[in-house]
């Protein structure tokens, strides 16, 4: 935008803000510097009209509430004005703590569009007199990231328009086209999900935004649907979380000093030799990752990660205690014996399963395959893993 155009736009806005009456394009041209032209010359007049249309569009894009109307029923041509009350940001008074919170919030987006929007919003709050510099430091640096699909999804939700997008799950390499009437988005455990009505499946579905492939395009008319009354977005996402219901208990021997992750996850840990076991309550917050699904009826294998890279990847561990010295008995809660068996196999010789027999057998089967270096079973092969994937869903 040229300097002259910027100047003209500021003057146009000030003119429209200062008038109570609607001003026609011709009146505006006569008042605001930069619109001078010969009205009787069709070419010159047309050039003005194009310029004026573009300028109005620019102000509207900025969010200026440009009103169109007539002053009386006798006016044949519409005029324009900006009402001060609609234009101005209402007064905001923030105490230093509140101002600090807003200042930090504006910086926490790791997403280009939202980050820009937050900082221009902040500029307006500052312009309104809010002082952001004086707040006490929070002592925390939060970062929120978001997937590229978030903003187009939100735009569609806002105008209640259906969307079309490619979606790829870990189960399926080929992205599939989905059509959705989106109701809302939820950030849960740092991941973004969209909830809505799946038009092809005719059912409520939840999609993880990081699995959206390519662009999200809006389809069909605006205002095409209404989200359900009193919709609880978080509860909707939680409903798709395959919370294990049927909790069973396994007993495993764990070598002393080994398998710290398993111990943190355990219900109880006690030395094997102890006659009257004193139960040690273990921390259970380290339980494995939960996988959210788009199809509640077709769960992926919800396998807690056996090992996980750690930001603190240092090598200064305790020296391993005498390897064959002693064992603990560890009690674990689980719902899926196959998932538990795979996880236990990850601990190798540090863990020996005692009960139940199905977990024990599955661990032996996993280990036997690995010891022989037998390749992973193909999906076509009859394997308990396949049975699990299918069996869990029907």
């Amino acid at each position, binding site marked *: 935008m040229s300097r002259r155009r910027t100047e003209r736009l500021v003057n146009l806005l000030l003119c429209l803000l200062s008038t109570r009456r609607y001003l026609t394009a011709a009146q505006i041209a006569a008042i605001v510097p930069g619109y001078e032209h010969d009205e009787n010359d069709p070419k010159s007049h047309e050039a003005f009209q194009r310029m004026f249309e573009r300028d109005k569009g620019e102000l509207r894009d900025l969010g200026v509430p440009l009103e169109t109307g007539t002053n009386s029923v006798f006016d044949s041509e519409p005029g324009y004005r900006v009402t001060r009350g609609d234009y101005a940001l209402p007064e*905001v008074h923030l105490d230093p703590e509140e101002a600090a919170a807003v200042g930090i919030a504006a910086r926490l987006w790791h997403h280009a569009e*939202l980050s820009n*929007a937050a900082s221009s919003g902040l500029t307006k709050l500052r312009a309104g007199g809010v002082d952001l510099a004086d707040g006490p430091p929070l002592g925390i640096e939060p970062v929120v990231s978001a997937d590229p699909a978030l903003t187009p999804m939100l735009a569609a939700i806002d105008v209640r328009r259906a969307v079309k997008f490619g979606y790829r799950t870990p189960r399926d390499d080929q992205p599939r086209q989905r059509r959705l009437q989106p109701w809302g988005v939820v*950030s849960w455990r740092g991941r973004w999900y969209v909830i809505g009505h799946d038009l092809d499946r005719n059912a409520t579905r939840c999609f993880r935004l990081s699995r959206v492939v390519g662009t999200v395009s809006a389809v069909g008319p605006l205002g095409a649907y209404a989200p359900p009354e009193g919709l609880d977005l978080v509860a909707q996402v939680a409903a798709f979380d395959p919370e294990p219901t049927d909790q069973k208990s396994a007993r495993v021997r764990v070598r002393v000093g080994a398998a710290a992750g398993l111990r943190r996850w355990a219900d109880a840990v006690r030395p094997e030799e102890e006659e009257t076991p004193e139960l040690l309550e273990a921390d259970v*917050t380290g339980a494995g990752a939960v996988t959210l699904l788009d199809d509640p009826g077709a769960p992926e294998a919800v396998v807690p990660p056996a090992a996980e890279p750690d930001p603190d990847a240092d090598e200064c*561990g305790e020296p391993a205690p005498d390897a064959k010295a002693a064992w603990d008995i560890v009690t674990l809660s689980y719902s899926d014996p196959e998932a538990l068996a795979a996880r236990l196999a990850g601990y190798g010789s540090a863990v020996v399963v005692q009960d139940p027999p199905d977990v024990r057998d599955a661990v032996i089967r996993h280990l036997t395959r*690995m010891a022989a270096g037998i390749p*992973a079973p193909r999906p076509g092969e009859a394997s308990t893993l396949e049975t699990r994937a299918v069996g869990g869903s029907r």
Partner: protein
Amino acid sequence: MSGAGTERLARLLALVPYLQARPGALISEVAEDHGVTERQLRDDLQLLFVCGLPGYGPGDLIDMSLDDDTVTLTYHAELDRPLRLTADEALALIVALRALAETPGVDGAAVGRALAKVEGAAGEAGRSAKQVAVTGGYEDTGVAAQVRGALERGRALKIVYYTAGRDATSERVIDPMRLLVVDGRAYVEAWCRRAEAVRMFRIDRIDALEELPEPSVPARGMSPESGFRHGAVFAPAPDSPLITLRVGLGSRWITEYYPCDDVRAEPGGTWLVTLRASDLEWARRLAMGLGEDAEVVSPPELAELVRSEARAALAAY
């Protein structure tokens, strides 16, 4: 909003009320608050001098007294309030405040009050934020708040920490440097006296902590940037071993969970997944923990590690 021109127009409209609220504002601060150079700011102010109300006489134009360091607005031409928030601005601020309220270790009261005020000021523009919910989803055990307290008081911490990479728990003394919360999960970046290096500790893996009476001596010339690069907490070192696993459907989740160098579909419904492991022992635990659904393709040392460990484990049955 797009384009440098539009950005400038938006800035000019905010500048006038900004200056109106701050007589004698320092040019350097005004420029900083608007994210521009002092030179650009002076150019903006020159432009405003020629704008004003119809009539455009000396008393109608925006006016200010401008010297070497400060600026005072003397006539605002009815532009004494900033433009209301757009829907995008309201959404970005409101959702960020909600995320902040859900952040472990943050005192939510001030955030909640700020949220209510920003929502009030946004009015109808804040409508789309109603369709966005932010919930932490992680259990807040209060450890983050304790770490924050230690940071405020400048004290060292004794912690019992679970290192997933080694699958081991250890006790160590750390000098906390800052608390980071990435996508709702909290980390403390600290000098680890045992490792003698800056480390990131995941808050949910601190099994016990005790604030020591002795002061924290974190810096030792270290900048608190080591662990958090490019928005990612875990960045594998370029010299860590590259491993390739062949995985079936049931183990495909690792491609979303770990940063992978390559994921390739094979005929027959399996995938070749290549990723950097922190070390081969970690890779062995990962591969074996996937059960029979995964197979080591390379390196050969890893395949041998898996075979020998599986044999040793079988000996107990």
